[in-house]
C-alpha cells in the first residue's frame, strides 16, 4: 500500500512539475499552432506523440492540457473545500435552525442535476470570454457546485466535536464560542478538510473531462484533458492511431493516483 501511495504521489508530483514548467520545457512547440501540412501525423522525432486532426503537436497539447486540468482542479477543490468548511462548520457549530437550513441546502445541491445546471449556467454566460477566462469560469462553476457533499462531512465532524468532553471543558473554563471554534474545533477539522480536498480533486478532473467531451468545457484553442479525450469518440481511429489513447491513459493514471492519495489522507487519524 505504501508503494502504491509513493508511486501515486510521484506521478502527481511529476505531472504537476511538468504542468508548471510547460512553457519553459516546450519552447519549440505550441499547443495551438496548426501545421496544416502535418495533420494526424504519427509519432516522430519532431512530434513525439504525433499531431492532431488540425496539425497541432499532441505532446504540447497533452502537457498544457494536464496543466489546465490539474491546476484548475486544485483551485476548484480549494474553493469547494472552503465553502464546505464555512457552511458545514457554521451548521455543525451553531446547530438548531441554522443546521437544518444548511442541511436542507446541501440536500438541494446534492440532488441537483449538475450537468444540466452547468449547461444552463454556461449558456447564460457572456460569449466574449478568452480561453483563460473560460477555464476559470468552468472550474469556478465546478467548485461552487461541488461543496455540498464535503459540507455534510464537515458538519458531522464539527457536531461530534461540539459535544466532545474537551470542548465542554473549554466552555466550562469560560472560553467564548468563537475562541472555542477557532482554537479547538478548527484544528481538529483540518484532517477532514484535507481529506475532502483530496477526494474532490479527482472528481473535478473527471467533471472537467465530462464537460470537455461534450464540447462544453475549456474553449479552443486551450487544451484540457477533457477536450483531448474528444478524439476518442472516433473509436475506429484507435486501431490505426493508438497513440490517441495517451490522454485517456494519463487521465486514468491521474485520477487513480489522486484517489490513492485521498484514501491515504482519509485513513490518517
Amino acid at each position, binding site marked *: 500500500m505504501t508503494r502504491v501511495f509513493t508511486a501515486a504521489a510521484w506521478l502527481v508530483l511529476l505531472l504537476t512539475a511538468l504542468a508548471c514548467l510547460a512553457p519553459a520545457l516546450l519552447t519549440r512547440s505550441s499547443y*495551438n*499552432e*496548426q501545421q*496544416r501540412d502535418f*495533420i494526424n501525423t504519427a509519432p516522430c522525432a519532431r512530434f513525439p506523440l504525433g499531431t492532431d*486532426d*488540425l*496539425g497541432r503537436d499532441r505532446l504540447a497539447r497533452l502537457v498544457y492540457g494536464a496543466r489546465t486540468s490539474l491546476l484548475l482542479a486544485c483551485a476548484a477543490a480549494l474553493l469547494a473545500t472552503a465553502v464546505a468548511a464555512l457552511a458545514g462548520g457554521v451548521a455543525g457549530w451553531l446547530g438548531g435552525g441554522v443546521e437544518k437550513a444548511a442541511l436542507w441546502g446541501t440536500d438541494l445541491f446534492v440532488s441537483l442535476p449538475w450537468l444540466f445546471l452547468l*449547461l444552463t449556467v*454556461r*449558456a447564460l454566460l457572456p*460569449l*466574449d*470570454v*478568452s*480561453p483563460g477566462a473560460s477555464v476559470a469560469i468552468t472550474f469556478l462553476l465546478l467548485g461552487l457546485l461541488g461543496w455540498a457533499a464535503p459540507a455534510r462531512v464537515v458538519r458531522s465532524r464539527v457536531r461530534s466535536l461540539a459535544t466532545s468532553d474537551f470542548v465542554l471543558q473549554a466552555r466550562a473554563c469560560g472560553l467564548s464560542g468563537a475562541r472555542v471554534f477557532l482554537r479547538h474545533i478548527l484544528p481538529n477539522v483540518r484532517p477532514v478538510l484535507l481529506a475532502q480536498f483530496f477526494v474532490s480533486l479527482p472528481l473535478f478532473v473527471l467533471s472537467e473531462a465530462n464537460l470537455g467531451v*461534450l*464540447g*462544453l468545457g475549456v*474553449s*479552443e*484553442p486551450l487544451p484540457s484533458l477533457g477536450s483531448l479525450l*474528444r478524439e476518442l*469518440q*472516433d*473509436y*475506429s*481511429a484507435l486501431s490505426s492511431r493508438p497513440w490517441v489513447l495517451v490522454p485517456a491513459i494519463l487521465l486514468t493514471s491521474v485520477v487513480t493516483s489522486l484517489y490513492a492519495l485521498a484514501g491515504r489522507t482519509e485513513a490518517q487519524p
Partner: protein
Amino acid sequence: MRRVLPALLWQAALMLGLSAQEAGELRFCLRADPKTFDPQIVEDEPSETVRYLTGGVLIRLNRSTQKPEPELASSWHISENGRRIDFHLRPGLQFSDGSALTADDVAWTMKRVFDPALHSPVGDAFRSGPGEVETRISAPDAITVRFPAPVSALALQFDQLVIQSHRAVQGQAPVAGPFVVAEYKPGNYLLLRRNTRYWRRAADGRQLPYLGSIRLDIQQNRDVESLWFRRGQIQFIGKLDPELYEVLARESPASVHDAGPSLDWVQLWFNQVPSAPIAANRKAWFTSTAFRRAISWAINREDICRVVYHGHAKPAAGPVSVSNRFWFNAALKPDEHSPSRALELLASDGFRKRGDTLFDRAGTPVEFSIVTNSGNRLHERILAMIQQDLAAIGIRVHTVTLDFPSLIERITRTYDYDACLLPLMAGLDPSDQMNVWLSSGAEHQWNPRQTKPATAWEAEVDALMRAQASASDDKTRKAAWDRVQQIVHEQVPFIFLINPDAMCAISPKLRNAAPALVWPQVFWNVERLALTP
C-alpha cells in the same frame, strides 16, 4: 407429360429462386421515431422517410436528373402563368387496400391539405397568395387545380403531396406508394411491406418494388449504425461524415460513394440586428461590407476542405451549389484566401494592424466571438481554423460552442451574439430559400424579420425573390435568381465557406443503388432497389 413436368418444376424452382432473391428485406437506420404517419403534416426527417417510401404522389422529382417526372399522373400541364395545373391520372390506379385511386381522391387530398385547421407544411408550400384553391374534376382520371396566385416551381411542389384515399379512416389509411406500414415498435423498429398494388412495373413487365420489405431500425447512435453496417446488419448509411467515409473506404472501398458537393453549405454570418445587445463599435464593424469581405478573404477555404473534410468538400461561392446544375450562377467564384488583400481592404476602411493586433478607427482592438453548436466536431474544427486564419490578420476570435437550444435562443430571440457558424440545408429550387433571402424572413439570419428592408440591396433582393417566385418561365426565374446570387456575393451577408460532399456507404449486396445529391440520397429509387442473397 414426363418431359413437361420436369420443365415446369425447373421453371417453378427458378421463379421461386428469383422471388426469394428479389423479395429480400432492406434494412437501414432512422435517427428517431417518426413523429407522425400523416403525410400532410410531416416536419421531421424520419416521418419524411416513411412518407417517401409509402406515399403515392402525382409528380416525383427524379433525384438523379433533377427533373420532375410523372408518377400517379401520366401527364400534367401548367398554364395561366403558374396558377393552374391539369392532371391526367394513370389508368387502373389502386390504393394498397384495393380501392380505386381517382380524381375524387386528388380533390379530397387538395381540400384537406389546404384546410387552414390542418396547418399542413405541404399546403403552405403552395400558398402564394390569399384566396381559395379550386379543384375541378372533368373525368374520373382528369382533374384541374387552380391556385389564387402563381406558384413558383409548381410541378416540384407536388413531389411532397401524397394522394390519400377519400374513404380513408385516419390511422388505417391505404397508400399508393411502393410500401405500406406493416408493424411499428416505437423506439425499436418500423417494418414496411411491399405494396402489391403499386402501379409501377419494370421494363420487363415485372411488378415493382423488387424488395419484399424494409426494416427501419430506430438508432440515434452513429457508431452503432456504422458497426451494424460493417457487420452487414444494415445495407446503407446516408450522410456519412468524412472520418467514417475514410475508415470505410479503407476497409471496403466499394461500399463508399461520394456524389460530389451537396446542395447544403456551411456559412458564417455576423449579427447585424440593430437592436442586438452588442457594443456599438462591433455593430459598426459587422455592418461594414468591407469588413465582412476582408474576413471572407482571410479565411482559407481550401484548407478547411482539405483538413476538416479530407477533400470531401468544395469552397462555396454562394447560396447555390455547383451541383445544382440549372440554378448555379457559374459567373461566381469562391473568395480566394488572401490575408494581404484582406489587410489592404481593412486599411481602406480605417482599420490598422499594429504588431499582432488589428485596431479599428477608434483604436479599439478587433476581437469578437463566433458561436456554433456543441457536439459537431466538424464545425468546431472549422472554427479553430478560422480562429488561426483571423489571428494572422490581427483579429482575436473567441470560439464558443453552445447546446443547440441555447444557440437557437441567441440567434433567433435575444440576438446576443457576434457571429455564428452553422450549416444550411438547401433544396434545388430558389423558392426553397424565400425565408432566407426575404428581409422579412425568419431565416434572414444576419437581420431577420425586418419590417422594411434595412438596405437598398436587401430591397432589391426582396423584389427579385418575389419576381422569381411569381414568374412561370424558368428563364426569367433564372435571371432573377442569378442577380440575387450576384448581390449576395458582393454584399457578403453570409460568408459562404464550403459545400460538403454528399457521401454514403452502400453494401455491395444492394443492387441498382444510384446515390444522388438530393434527399433521399440512397433510396430515392427504392422501387428498383434489390438485394443479392
